[in-house]
């Protein structure tokens, strides 16, 4: 199975408040609030670290979540954010996040 790489779009405005990440899409002004687990994934979305590694090292170990559950939830989360263009998904490392959605898989 190919790896999945995720990167934050540059077309967003974001700020962390408490344990939650507030994100506003600069493309359509949609507003998102991420919970603590989603915030960890968001912050780790550097375009170079595979999603599987983020889930294993940051989610399963940090929050004591079963790997299968964590993987499924993480995939749903990144797919949902990519549909709004605020997270980019690729099967190759993403070196320079572009504006908007540029899903390549």
């Amino acid at each position, binding site marked *: 199975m190919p790896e999945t790489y995720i990167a934050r779009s540059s077309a967003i405005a974001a*700020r962390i408040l408490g344990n939650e990440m507030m994100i*506003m899409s*600069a*493309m359509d*002004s949609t507003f998102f609030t991420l919970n603590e687990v989603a915030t960890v994934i968001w912050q780790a979305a550097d375009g170079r670290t595979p999603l599987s590694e983020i889930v294993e090292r940051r989610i399963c170990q940090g929050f004591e979540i079963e790997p299968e559950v964590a993987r499924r939830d993480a995939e749903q989360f990144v797919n949902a954010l990519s549909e709004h263009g605020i997270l980019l998904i690729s099967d190759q490392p993403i070196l320079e996040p572009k504006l908007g959605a540029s899903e390549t898989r």
Partner: protein
Amino acid sequence: MTPTAELRGIQEVAVEIGDTPILLRTNDAAFQEIVLHRYARFLGKGARPPLTFDVDIARPEGALSDEQELRVWSDNGLWRFVRGDFRAEWDPRARRGHILQTLTPYAIDSVLRIVHTLIQASEGGFLLHGASAIRNGRASLFSGVSGAGKTTISRLAPKDAVLLSDEISYIRRDGSGYRACGTPFAGELGRPGENATAPVERLYFLAKGPENRMDPIETADALRMLLRNILFFADDAELVKMVFHSANEFLGRVPAFRLTFFPDERVWDLIG
């Protein structure tokens, strides 16, 4: 000679809202009358150099665009605003613009609101869908969706309160704080706000209920509600980022509360 008579004799009128004068130049006497009447409390040239708009009135009357929905976009540094009753463009660098509109006050109201939202976006302020009033030298903001009680809370304001607006409030960055400024943009109350200003003390999100109570709001919830009520017209990514940043900064300095109120004047005892 009255100030109004003096202004009638010239072809330009400065409308100053939020300490930002906008000079409207026109040859159309009927349009001048609308401006002089509608913005009577907000006329005059302030200390800041004005932005200038040349205004032409479309005759005969009719829609200027097939687009009834407002569109605001940036085109090579030039802002363009289009709606059925006006077409406008504004060059922020040259501080000049042009408006072609039908002879209605609603068109110039909208253009002024758009220009002010664009100006304030880059200065850390914003226009808020909300009422505002000054009491004891401090301003309170009352925001909420239609029906939340903006006009009601304005109507219940005590005599010593200075009403800045019952519909659109003007928030400016002022050093480490914020100031609320009066606007001529009226809601159901049907009268413009006073041309006054004061430091913002609190932001309230309104809800009607069986009793008066004030509850603090988590910053994340306040941010969500504030962004929902900031006037924002442009389809522009950089501007979205600026507004998001401004809302965050504002909530870092001004406490936000949920104000549930039973519609009688006792709610103002709680507001202070």
